[in-house]
């Protein structure tokens, strides 16, 4: 049944459009002509509103409630003048005529309202259906893109691991970071996200940890297209700090701060080792790649990543102009 209404909605003109107004006028004119034809065929006056009731249903459906209400008024005036005695006058012959006119006015308005609202519901249903299809297409597109990212991570990890257990552990941890980014994106409906939420989500597996201190800055946002990249980078930094750095069971600390300077947002990861004898990690590999590509090397962004014997510094900068948090 819904399918038939959808088809009907597709062929109807938009209420208020020139086509809808023209159709309404045509239906009303046809109803008036049909009334005259019926009178002539019967050789007597048929009930004055006999053709206008179905006409109002059609006008309301095709042209909308307001057009139909105008039709009620026009039918009332036309019938009153021509088809109510005394003919050719707006005088009222008696209570029967008066009650007939009032009944038509009320029932015509009700028909217009009920059918008009039905038409609006049809239009709303059709609009929702279009939006639902668009969202489905967009979701499939995003899922496929996400699968591409997962595929690339898997390929990269597999090249840098020598056993399945090592692959499994590294791949799973990066999937977890990607999943946390998706949580943030779903929450913000793929709009710009607050940096605070991204940090909380990406670092949730590593907290609470007294050595990992997040110093909250202003309420700034990150464009949606960078959320996955920054989440993966933060996860990478925290994982490295847990495995080799300041969050391991050795004295050290990590501070994470963010701020806005003019039109730039910045996020700074500063990891300080007190164990200076520990050699610096190799500043290369897939983890480094993830960190350095947090912003896809886009113009206006900057990532500075440095690993030394004393610690690790990662600075991320991005333009704030497109900020639009939810």
């Amino acid at each position, binding site marked *: 049944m819904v399918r038939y209404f959808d088809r009907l909605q597709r062929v109807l003109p938009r209420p208020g459009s020139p086509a809808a107004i023209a159709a309404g006028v045509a239906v009303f004119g046809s109803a008036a002509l049909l009334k005259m034809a019926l009178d002539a065929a019967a050789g007597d006056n048929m009930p004055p509103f006999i053709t206008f009731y179905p006409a109002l249903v059609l006008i309301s459906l095709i042209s909308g409630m307001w057009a139909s209400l105008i039709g009620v008024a026009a039918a009332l005036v036309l019938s009153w003048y021509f088809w109510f005695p005394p003919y050719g006058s707006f005088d009222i012959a008696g209570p029967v005529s008066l009650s007939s006119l009032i009944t038509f006015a009320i029932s015509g308005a009700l028909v217009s309202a009920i059918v008009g609202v039905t038409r609006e519901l049809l239009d709303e249903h059709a609009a929702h259906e279009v939006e639902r299809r668009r969202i489905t297409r967009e979701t*499939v*597109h995003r899922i*496929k893109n996400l699968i*591409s990212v997962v595929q690339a991570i898997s*390929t990269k990890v597999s090249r840098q691991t020598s056993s399945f257990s090592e692959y499994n552990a590294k791949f799973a941890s990066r999937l977890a970071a990607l999943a946390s980014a998706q949580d943030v994106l779903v929450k913000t409906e793929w709009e710009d996200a607050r940096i605070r939420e991204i940090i909380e989500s990406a670092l949730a597996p590593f907290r609470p940890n007294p050595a990992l201190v997040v110093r909250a800055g202003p309420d700034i946002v990150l464009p949606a*297209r960078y959320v996955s990249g920054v989440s993966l980078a933060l996860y990478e930094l925290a994982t490295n700090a847990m495995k080799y750095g300041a969050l391991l069971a050795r004295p050290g600390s990590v501070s994470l701060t963010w701020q806005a300077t003019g039109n730039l947002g910045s996020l700074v990861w500063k990891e300080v080792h007190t164990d200076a004898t520990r050699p610096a990690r190799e500043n290369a590999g897939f983890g480094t790649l993830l960190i350095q*590509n947090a912003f*896809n*090397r886009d113009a206006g962004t900057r990532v500075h990543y440095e690993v030394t014997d004393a610690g690790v510094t990662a600075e991320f900068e991005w333009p704030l102009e497109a900020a639009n948090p939810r």
Partner: protein
Amino acid sequence: MASDGSIITILVVEDEPLPRMDLAEQLIAAGYEVCEASSGEEALAHLQNGQRIDVLITDIQLGGRVTGWDLAEKFRAAHARIPVVYTSGKPPDHDRKVSGSVFFSKPVRAIDVVRTCRSFGGAVPDR
């Protein structure tokens, strides 16, 4: 190798860094020279700079105003026979595909793209 004996240069345009880098690495491993662009605008800069590009591989939705469809048309306008490979998570728009182009639905296997590039052999395949 290109017809003049030089190494074929492929421009990979993809706004997602990891899939882009992965594809680029596999193309390099297959013997191609690869340039990367993360947006349509960046890819157009390669064209405007007169940089030699023998094959264009592009995603469709690139985050900016310039789509992969636009890019392919502009590259074809400049180089009538440049082979074009589209990759996308969306279905192909046959009205926008340039003639002789190849469309891959994501996720794309790099090996398939490499095979396709090999099949070009320096000429645009018939549609």
